[in-house]
C-alpha cells in the first residue's frame, strides 16, 4: 500500500506532470505526422533521457507512447494517410467522414474511445499481472530461457509476411548482441581485434539506426504530401452517441488487450481484428462500413490504445515485450538498471505502480490535448518530409551521441540505418532484429545457467526442457506456430481443403 501511495504522489509532482504532458502532446504530434513513427520518437527519447532519473524518463517516454498510438488517427482521418500503422483501419471510415465535413466529430469520437480503450487495457493489466507474476516467480533458468526464446521466435514468425525472414532477422539481432566480451570468461567474441567492439555494440545506436534512420531513408523516397483536409468543425460527439457504443468499445478493447499480450501481434493487427469484429457484430451501423461508420473508428481506436495495456502484461511479468514499442520501453528500463520480469514486481513494486499511474495520467492528458488542440494543431500533418527527415537525422545523431558520448555510436547509427533501409527494401522485418539485440544477453545468461543446472549434458538439457511443464508447453506452442506457418503445413492444409471441397461436390 505504501508503494501505491508513494508512486501516486511521485507522478503528481509538477516536474513529472509537466514531462508527462509534454511527452503526451509531443507524441500526439509525432503520431499525427505521416512519415514519423512511434518507434522513432520513443527511440530518440530513450537516448535523450539516458542520464535522467527513472521517474522523469518514464513520464516523458510513456506519455509519448500513449500519444503516438492515438495521434495516428489525426492523419488517418484528415489525410487518409495514417500516421501510425495502428491507425490504418481508422482511415477506412475516418476519411470518408472528413470528406463529409465531419472530420472533427470523427477525431472527437476517436479521442474518447482511445481514452476508454486505454483505461480498459490498464484495468486488465492490473487484473492479469499479479497471477501471471506469481506463476513466473516459479520460473528457473530453463523457463526463462524458453520464455525469452519463445518471445523472440514468436515475434520473428508473426511479424512480416515470411516466417524465415522474421526468424533470420531475430537471429541476426541476437548475433549483434553477442559481439564483444563474453560475460562468463571475458574472451572477446567477433571483435576481430577492434578495441571499440570489446565493450559490445550498444543497443541504442542499433535501435536508432534501425527505427529512425532507416525509416527516414525509406520515407524520403516516397512522394511528399500535397493535400488534405484540415478544416475541423465540431469535435465533441453527443454523450448519447458515446454511451450507446460502450459495448462495442469494451469488445474492441478486449481484442486489443489480448492481441497486445501475444508477442508479435501488436496494435496494427489488433485494430484490424477489431474492425472485422465490428463489421460482423454491429447490426445497424451509423453508415455502411467503409463509407463513414463511426463504429469503424470506435472499434479501431479503442483496440489500439487498449493494446498498450496488453503489451505491458508480458513485459512487466515475464520481461518479454509484446511489440516494437514495448521493446524500446524495455530498453529504457534496462538502461536505468531495471530488470523487467516477475522479480520487478517483487523487488521494485514502486516502479510497477509508477508505470500504471503514469499511463492513467497520460490517457487523461491524451483526452485533454486530443479534444482541446486538434483545431489548432491539425495543420501539422501537412509538414513536408523534405524538411522533416533531415531534422530526424539531426536528432538521431544527437541521440546516438548522448548515450555514452562516443563518436563511434554516430557511425554505428548510420551503418544500421543503411542496414535497416536495405532490410525494408528486401522485406525483412526490423522489429525482430531490435528485439534480438535487446534480449540476447538475457537469452545467453539463462541458456548457460540452464546448461550448468543440466550438468553440461545435451540429453539432460533437452529432457529438462521437455519435462518442466511451463517450458514444455511454450516449446509445444512455438512448434505449432512455426510448423503452422511453414510451407509444408500450408501445402497440407491446402490439400485437405481441396479434398474436402471435392468430396462435398
Amino acid at each position, binding site marked *: 500500500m505504501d508503494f501505491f501511495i508513494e508512486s501516486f504522489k511521485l507522478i503528481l509532482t509538477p516536474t513529472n506532470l509537466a514531462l508527462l504532458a509534454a511527452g503526451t502532446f509531443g507524441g500526439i504530434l509525432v503520431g499525427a505526422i505521416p512519415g514519423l513513427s512511434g518507434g522513432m520518437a520513443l527511440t530518440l527519447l530513450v537516448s535523450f533521457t539516458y542520464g535522467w532519473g527513472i521517474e522523469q524518463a518514464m513520464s516523458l517516454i510513456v506519455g509519448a507512447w500513449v500519444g503516438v498510438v492515438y495521434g495516428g488517427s489525426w492523419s488517418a482521418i484528415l489525410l487518409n494517410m495514417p500516421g501510425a500503422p495502428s491507425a490504418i483501419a481508422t482511415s477506412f471510415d475516418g476519411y470518408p467522414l472528413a470528406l463529409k465535413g465531419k472530420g472533427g466529430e470523427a477525431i472527437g469520437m476517436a479521442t474518447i474511445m482511445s481514452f476508454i480503450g486505454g483505461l480498459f487495457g490498464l484495468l486488465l493489466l492490473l487484473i492479469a499481472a499479479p497471477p501471471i507474476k506469481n506463476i513466473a516467480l516459479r520460473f528457473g533458468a530453463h523457463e526463462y530461457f524458453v520464455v525469452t526464446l519463445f518471445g523472440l521466435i514468436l515475434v520473428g514468425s508473426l511479424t512480416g509476411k515470411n516466417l524465415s525472414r522474421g526468424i533470420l532477422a531475430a537471429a541476426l539481432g541476437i548475433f549483434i548482441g553477442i559481439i564483444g566480451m563474453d560475460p562468463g570468461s571475458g574472451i572477446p567474441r567477433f571483435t576481430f581485434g577492434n578495441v571499440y567492439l570489446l565493450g559490445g555494440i550498444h543497443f541504442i545506436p542499433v535501435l536508432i539506426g534501425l527505427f529512425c534512420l532507416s525509416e527516414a531513408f525509406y520515407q524520403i523516397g516516397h512522394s511528399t504530401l500535397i493535400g488534405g483536409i484540415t478544416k475541423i468543425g465540431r469535435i465533441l460527439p453527443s454523450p448519447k452517441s458515446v454511451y450507446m457504443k460502450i459495448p462495442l468499445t469494451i469488445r474492441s478493447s478486449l481484442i486489443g488487450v489480448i492481441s497486445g499480450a501475444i508477442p508479435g501481434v501488436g496494435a496494427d493487427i489488433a485494430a484490424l481484428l477489431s474492425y472485422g469484429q465490428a463489421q460482423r457484430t454491429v447490426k445497424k451501423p451509423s453508415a455502411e462500413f467503409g463509407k463513414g461508420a463511426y463504429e469503424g473508428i470506435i472499434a479501431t481506436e479503442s483496440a489500439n490504445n487498449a493494446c498498450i495495456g496488453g503489451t505491458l502484461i508480458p513485459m512487466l511479468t515475464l520481461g518479454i515485450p509484446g511489440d516494437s514499442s514495448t521493446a524500446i520501453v524495455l530498453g529504457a528500463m534496462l538502461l536505468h538498471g531495471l530488470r523487467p520480469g516477475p522479480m520487478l514486481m517483487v523487488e521494485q513494486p514502486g516502479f510497477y505502480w509508477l508505470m500504471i499511474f503514469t499511463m492513467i495520467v497520460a490517457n487523461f492528458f491524451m483526452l485533454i490535448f486530443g479534444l482541446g488542440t486538434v483545431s489548432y494543431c491539425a495543420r501539422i500533418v501537412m509538414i513536408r518530409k523534405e524538411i522533416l527527415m533531415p531534422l530526424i537525422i539531426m536528432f538521431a545523431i544527437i541521440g546516438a551521441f548522448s548515450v555514452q558520448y562516443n563518436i563511434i555510436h554516430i557511425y554505428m547509427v548510420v551503418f544500421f540505418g543503411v542496414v535497416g533501409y536495405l532490410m525494408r527494401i528486401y*522485406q525483412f522485418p526490423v522489429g525482430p532484429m531490435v528485439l534480438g539485440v535487446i534480449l540476447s544477453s538475457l537469452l545467453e545468461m539463462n541458456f548457460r545457467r540452464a546448461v550448468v543446472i543440466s550438468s553440461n549434458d545435451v540429453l539432460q538439457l533437452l529432457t529438462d526442457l521437455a519435462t518442466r511443464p511451463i517450458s514444455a508447453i511454450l516449446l509445444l506452442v512455438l512448434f505449432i506456430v512455426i510448423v503452422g506457418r511453414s510451407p509444408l503445413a500450408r501445402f497440407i492444409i491446402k490439400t485437405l481443403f481441396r479434398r474436402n471441397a471435392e468430396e462435398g461436390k
Partner: protein
Amino acid sequence: MNKIADIVIGALFILIGILIVVFSIQLPHWGENLNNPGMLPFLVGVLIILCSLSILVNAIKNKVKNINDDRESVPVNLLKWSTLEGRRTYIFIVSTIIYVLAIKQFHFYLPTIAFLPITSFLLGVRSPIKLISITIISPLAVYLIFNYAFNIMLP
C-alpha cells in the same frame, strides 16, 4: 526481381551463417562442455543457415516453376538512380554520411547549419524563407533544448 533478390540474399546469409559457425568453433574452450563462449553463437549461426536455406530453396523453386509469391514486389524504384525516388534516397543517404563525417572534424553546429538547408534544397524545398528558418531556428532550438532542458552534450 523478388526471386533473384531472394536467391542472392539466401546465398549471402548462408555464407554469413557458415562464417559465424566457423568462428564460433574457433573460440577458446570450444568442445570442453556446453557452457562455453562459442555455443550460443554456434547455434545462432546454424539458425541463420537454416532460415537462409529456406529462403534460397523457396526462391529457386519459385523461379524454376515461374511462380509469383504473394509478397509485394521489391520496390526497385528506390534502388535505381534513374528514378526520382531512387535519386532522392541516394542523395539523402550520401548527405547523411557526409554530415556524420563532418561532425567529427567540425563538431556539431557548423555541419548541421550546412546539412539541413542543403539537404532540404537538394530534396526539392525551394522556399528561401523555409530554408533560412530551418538553418537558424533548428540549431538554436537544439542548443537551448539540449543544453538547458535535457542537459546533453552535443557532438
